[in-house]
């Protein structure tokens, strides 16, 4: 196997946003959330991602605003560190090594320590040492509670940090810091009505001695008087029909927010619990609820990788949507030929269009078009297959619902792309297109042909060809259908065998359908069986080669063989048959002629050319965890790479999806360099918010500055500008709150302003020497004034002949002398 050092696997987005509860900053401008190994900073008004705080080497498990400084934020990670960040500028301030993987962590304004949930179900208080170093080690650990729930929602600080409440299973434990004592309250396993009493989450009232707990059966209990072992009381609120997943009090304690799988946000009035507000149809089950410190914004995380920002008048103001992770991606990854977006299953009953370039969800296409009922155990319609035609004009989707002891409900829908709305519009619905599940679907891939053709294969033993048919005899009918719709054109079968997959050749002249172990090749023009191949184990995937390899038909078999048939000789050319261990995934490049192969448990990838038996590229242990899906995406601009090993990446890029829902891709070194270079160009001053307006105006101002510089260079060019000195720059650009004490800085600042006389003198002397040595001037001058535009240079050149050389030299000397003197005066 060949190893290629210059091809790397990189992460390119799509990580979870809803893993932990997000945090809203004090000014309600930013929203911070843990996302994979980074913390993302979003703007609450524009939904844009402003920074990514990168540095952790493990999954980030929590984000907390620093109680003592609201412009700083802590983050904890599985790599055993807690890091302190400045989120407005995205700067790492401090790293604190704790040494154990941290699963969740908490902090309270009253306590110096932060509380960390580490291994062995223990809640541990950690004292963070106060020191100026970047990297500190925290070794002062003290256990607070043991046997706590790993769910971060199961622990909450009580009124002003006086106590901490923790729920686990059927037990509520309240620990008072002052008394160093804990009380435990137990519930019975289930009550008379059969509901489950297990605790799911806890929240404490910020001003009052009250603890709210959520339960598996949808009840919310408000506990009071819990500083006694016996005389505690609780009242019950019930609206949710299944488990309450998150609870939160508003900062003033006037309202209690709760959410669950119903995807309804409920606002209960504290002490008037019969009054409540609802915000229904939030899209997916609520996993976390947080409130901004001033109470003006609520924010809910949802199971579909979405964060909704809600104004306190219960109105949705913004939605931050990540790559949706469905239960299973049954449609495979696809590329939309038109928008070059990645298309896959998203929310239940939807297809999501995800831009790879911008790592952003473009839109969700509602396929099922039914009201989604949020209830566990309910059989919903699922989008199971989807296919695009070559031009991206048509989209075919299959949705199915399988109920126990009932018939399979199948719908085949065909969507036409609408230029005006720039989205897909339903054209034809075919209910029950087949009697059994559809196993594969494929469009004829010719972009130029007038008639589009869709072939679907099904477990009922038939494959059907669907064709776009214009309505016949429109003039005769009163109810003339003005747009063409899809009709069944042909039904084919082969000896009652079940077709597993189908594929059109590149030019659309042949259709291959694999019926278990028989591969049949049909000509779509006449619907005649032209020839067939026989291979003993059943075929699991089929695909035609492209371009120069279009004579090859490739297939993977159930017994882990990759077979290649030559269609010209009509023979089973099994010579490039490679015995592979498990061909879990098999993908074909649509632009050039490569196929890739993922072996599931070896975690390796192979890239082949159909004509050659040896792999072009192979890589073991691509990533941690299984690769579930992959797709070749065409590049926008071709990469010119001379190396043969990375040639397959020239025209297209291979994206793959891991189990953690992370999108990965392969990049070459050259590409990375280019990306790096382009990102350097984009670096701009951070002190001003980067807006298009700034980009436009800022550039203009810079130019003006340059002009002015060049103009004034005549008299000011020799100044040792204090602004340029490194220490001053540092002073001005570091945020105020991270700077050392002013007394320390002051002397440094003053020193930098002073100009040592000897330095200036010597520099001067050198300058004069040089200028005298050189005959032709202007060049040197231009260099010294570095950014002087050429226009000025040309002007000076045109001026030059008017003066004699001697005169010019004299003039310059006068100027220089004059200038240094003046500059010294000014600076002092």
């Amino acid at each position, binding site marked *: 196997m060949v190893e290629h050092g210059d091809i790397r696997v990189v992460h390119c987005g799509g990580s979870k946003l809803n893993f932990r509860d997000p945090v809203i900053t004090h000014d309600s401008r930013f929203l911070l959330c843990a996302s994979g190994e980074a913390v993302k900073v979003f703007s609450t008004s524009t939904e844009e991602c402003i920074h990514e705080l990168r540095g952790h080497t493990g999954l980030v498990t929590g984000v907390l605003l620093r109680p003592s400084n609201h412009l700083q934020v802590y983050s904890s990670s599985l790599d055993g560190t807690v890091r302190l960040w400045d989120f407005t500028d995205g700067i790492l301030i401090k790293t604190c090594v704790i040494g154990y993987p941290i699963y969740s962590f908490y902090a309270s304004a009253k306590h110096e320590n932060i509380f960390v949930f580490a291994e062995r179900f223990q809640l541990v208080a950690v004292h963070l040492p106060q020191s100026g170093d970047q990297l500190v080690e925290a070794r002062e650990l003290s256990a607070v509670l043991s046997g706590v729930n790993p769910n971060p929602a199961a622990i909450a600080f009580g009124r002003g940090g006086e106590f901490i409440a923790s729920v686990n299973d059927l037990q509520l434990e309240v620990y008072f810091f002052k008394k160093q004592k804990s009380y435990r309250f137990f519930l019975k396993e289930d009550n008379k009505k059969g509901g489950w009493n297990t605790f799911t989450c806890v929240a404490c009232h910020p001003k009052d001695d009250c603890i709210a707990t959520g339960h598996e059966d949808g009840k919310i209990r408000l506990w009071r008087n819990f500083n006694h072992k016996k005389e505690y009381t609780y009242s019950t609120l019930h609206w949710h029909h299944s488990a309450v997943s998150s609870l939160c009090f508003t900062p003033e304690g006037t309202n209690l927010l709760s959410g669950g799988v119903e995807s309804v946000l409920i606002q209960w009035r504290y002490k008037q619990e019969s009054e409540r507000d609802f915000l229904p149809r939030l899209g997916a089950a609520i996993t976390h609820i947080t409130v901004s410190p001033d109470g003006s914004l609520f924010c809910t995380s949802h199971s579909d990788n979405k964060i909704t920002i809600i104004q306190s008048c219960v109105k949705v103001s913004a939605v931050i949507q990540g790559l949706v992770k469905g239960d299973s991606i049954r449609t495979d990854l696809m590329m939309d030929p038109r928008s070059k977006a990645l298309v896959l299953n998203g929310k239940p009953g939807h297809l999501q269009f995800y831009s790879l370039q911008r790592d952003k969800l473009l839109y969700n296409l509602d396929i099922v078009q039914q009201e989604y009922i949020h209830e566990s155990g309910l059989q919903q319609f699922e989008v199971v297959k989807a296919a695009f035609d070559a031009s991206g004009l048509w989209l075919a989707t299959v949705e199915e619902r399988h109920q126990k002891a009932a018939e399979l409900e199948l719908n085949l829908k065909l969507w036409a792309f609408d230029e005006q709305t720039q989205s897909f519009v339903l054209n034809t619905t075919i209910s029950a297109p087949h009697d059994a599940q559809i196993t594969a679907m494929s469009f004829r891939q010719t972009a130029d042909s007038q008639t589009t053709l869709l072939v679907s294969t099904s477990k009922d033993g038939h494959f059907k060809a669907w064709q776009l048919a214009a309505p016949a005899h429109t003039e005769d*009918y009163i*109810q003339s259908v003005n747009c063409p719709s899809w009709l069944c054109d042909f039904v084919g*079968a*082969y000896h009652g065998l079940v077709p597993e997959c189908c594929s059109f050749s590149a030019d659309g002249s042949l259709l291959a359908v694999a019926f278990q172990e028989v591969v049949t090749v049909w000509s779509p023009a006449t619907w005649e*069986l032209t020839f067939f191949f026989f291979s003993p184990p059943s075929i699991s995937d089929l695909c035609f080669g492209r371009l120069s390899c279009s004579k090859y038909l490739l297939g993977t078999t159930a017994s882990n063989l990759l077979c290649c048939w030559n269609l010209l000789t009509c023979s089973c050319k099994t010579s490039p048959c490679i015995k592979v261990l498990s061909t879990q995934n098999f993908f074909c490049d649509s632009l050039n002629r490569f196929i890739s192969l993922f072996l599931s448990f070896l975690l390796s990838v192979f890239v082949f050319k159909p004509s050659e038996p040896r792999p072009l590229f192979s890589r073991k242990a691509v990533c941690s965890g299984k690769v579930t899906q992959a797709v070749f995406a065409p590049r926008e601009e071709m990469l010119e790479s001379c190396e043969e090993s990375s040639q397959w990446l020239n025209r297209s890029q291979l994206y793959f999806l891991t189990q953690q829902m992370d999108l990965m891709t392969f990049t070459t070194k050259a590409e990375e360099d280019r990306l790096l270079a382009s990102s350097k160009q984009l670096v701009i001053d951070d002190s001003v918010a980067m807006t298009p307006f700034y980009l436009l105006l800022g550039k203009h101002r810079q130019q003006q500055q340059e002009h002015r510089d060049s103009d004034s260079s005549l008299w000011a060019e020799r100044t040792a500008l204090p602004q340029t000195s490194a220490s001053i720059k540092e002073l001005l650009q570091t945020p105020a709150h991270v700077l050392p004490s002013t007394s320390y800085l002051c002397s440094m600042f003053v020193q930098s302003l002073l100009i040592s006389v000897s330095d200036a003198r010597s520099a001067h002397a050198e300058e004069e020497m040089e200028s005298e040595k050189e005959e032709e001037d202007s060049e040197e001058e231009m260099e010294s004034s570095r950014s002087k535009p050429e226009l000025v240079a040309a002007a000076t050149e045109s001026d030059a002949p008017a003066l004699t050389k001697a005169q010019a030299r004299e003039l310059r000397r006068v100027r220089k002398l004059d200038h240094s003197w003046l500059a010294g005066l000014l600076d002092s």
Partner: protein
Amino acid sequence: MASFKPTKIQVYPKLGEKVTQDTLYWKNYKAPVQIKEFGAVTSIDFSPVTPHNFAVTAFTRIHIYGPFSQEPVKSFTRFKDTAYCGRFRSDGQLLVAGCEDSVVRLFDVSGKVALRLFKGHTKAVHLTDFTSDRYQILTGSDDYTCRLWDIPNATELTTYREHTDYIRCGVTSKLNRDLFITGSYDHTVKLFDARVEKSVITMDHGQPVESVLLYPSEGLLVSAGGRHVKVWDLLKGGQPLVSLKNHHKTVTSLALSSNGQRLLSASLDRHVKVYSTTNYKVVHNFDYAASILSLALAPDDESIVVGMTNSILSIKHRKNQEDSKEIAGQQRRRPSYRVFVKGKNYVPKQDDYLVSKPVKEHLAKYDKQLRRFNVSKALDTALETWIRFRKPEITMAVIKELDRRGTLKNALAGRDERGLSQLLNFLIGNFVDARFTPVLVTAAEMILDIYQSIIGQSPLVDRQLLRLQDLVEKELDYQKELLEVLGMLDTMFASSLPRKEVPCSGIGKSNGLTQGEPTTLDWV
């Protein structure tokens, strides 16, 4: 956030024929008036002058009916034997008829006794007609001859003996006094010119010719015989133009609609087919109770008259246009219309600041109830009488939606006798509809589960359950029969297909489509 998505009402394709202009036109007739005659009605002829009475020849009588009367205006009964082919002259004054006893009688429409008797034929005369100059009569007989007679002095002018079998039909030209056409059981249609001694054109129909018809332009000739209807181009010397084979029994009669755009053919298979004369495709079809012997259309298609072998005369009158128009006019003139459109067509000016009001989405009543999870009420709404009978697909969609939500059982339970019988009524009405069966089966099972205990308490519910049981049993038998037929068809197809070299399965295009047509297709 996202708004409530209303229940999707599936659009089912209309079963049966497609609604075209023709179906609308030919359906626009009132229920037929049926009159019992004394024997098989062999001929019907409309008078060319208003009020367009028509003569009906049946057994030994000829009755003349007015356009709207159900009793005969006049009847001619002086026939010794079966009368044939009563025809009006172009001025509507005279009527001629043949008879089994070979005598041709000429009547005055106002009189009773025959004005003239034309004797000369030796066998039954089935064809009689006036020439266009009104002074001559054409007759054709079972003695293989056709003759021309002079009316004023009742003498035979010419005899043509060219046919070799019975002459049963014929027509004279309306434009030329000398041309006439006869059709015979010797499979030929002949065009005669009275100025020459023999036929001018002979066309071979292939079957015994039962009826001939000339187009108003007289360039085209239609002949019917056996199962075929053939169209001939006379201007090209009798070249066959089209051969139509849409009946499965002998075609007995032909007629043209008043504007000449549609051709009608009646047959012993009890159907009347309407063809378009531009492409000769069947555009409409009438069914009758018995084999049809004669057919005629009133001028302007005001009525369709059909005579049948069971001696029934069926008259269909066209519906009055004014009645339907009046109703439509009343509906259109709503008083609130102007209020409704007020300000809708106001175009904002350039400087106007536009404040858009959120459009309030309208939800149907059952959707509103579904939104609030009132499942039983939603089902009640969907089972309201009007929806249940007129739009069963709405009821179906609601039941389906409830099933999808997993709350169908809750919605079905807890009904009283009235509610349950309503539900069962709907079930019985739509259970065997192939489009609804899959959903209704689950619903029916649930109903039986829920209401098992109350069987025997209400005679009404018991009766309906028994009916449901009957229905299911009948349907099962029916399905079994259908499968048998399908099996038979499969063997027939398999044996008729030629053997191919490639071992391809027998399911080709023709066969596959019969089995595999998608059950429902709808256009959205």
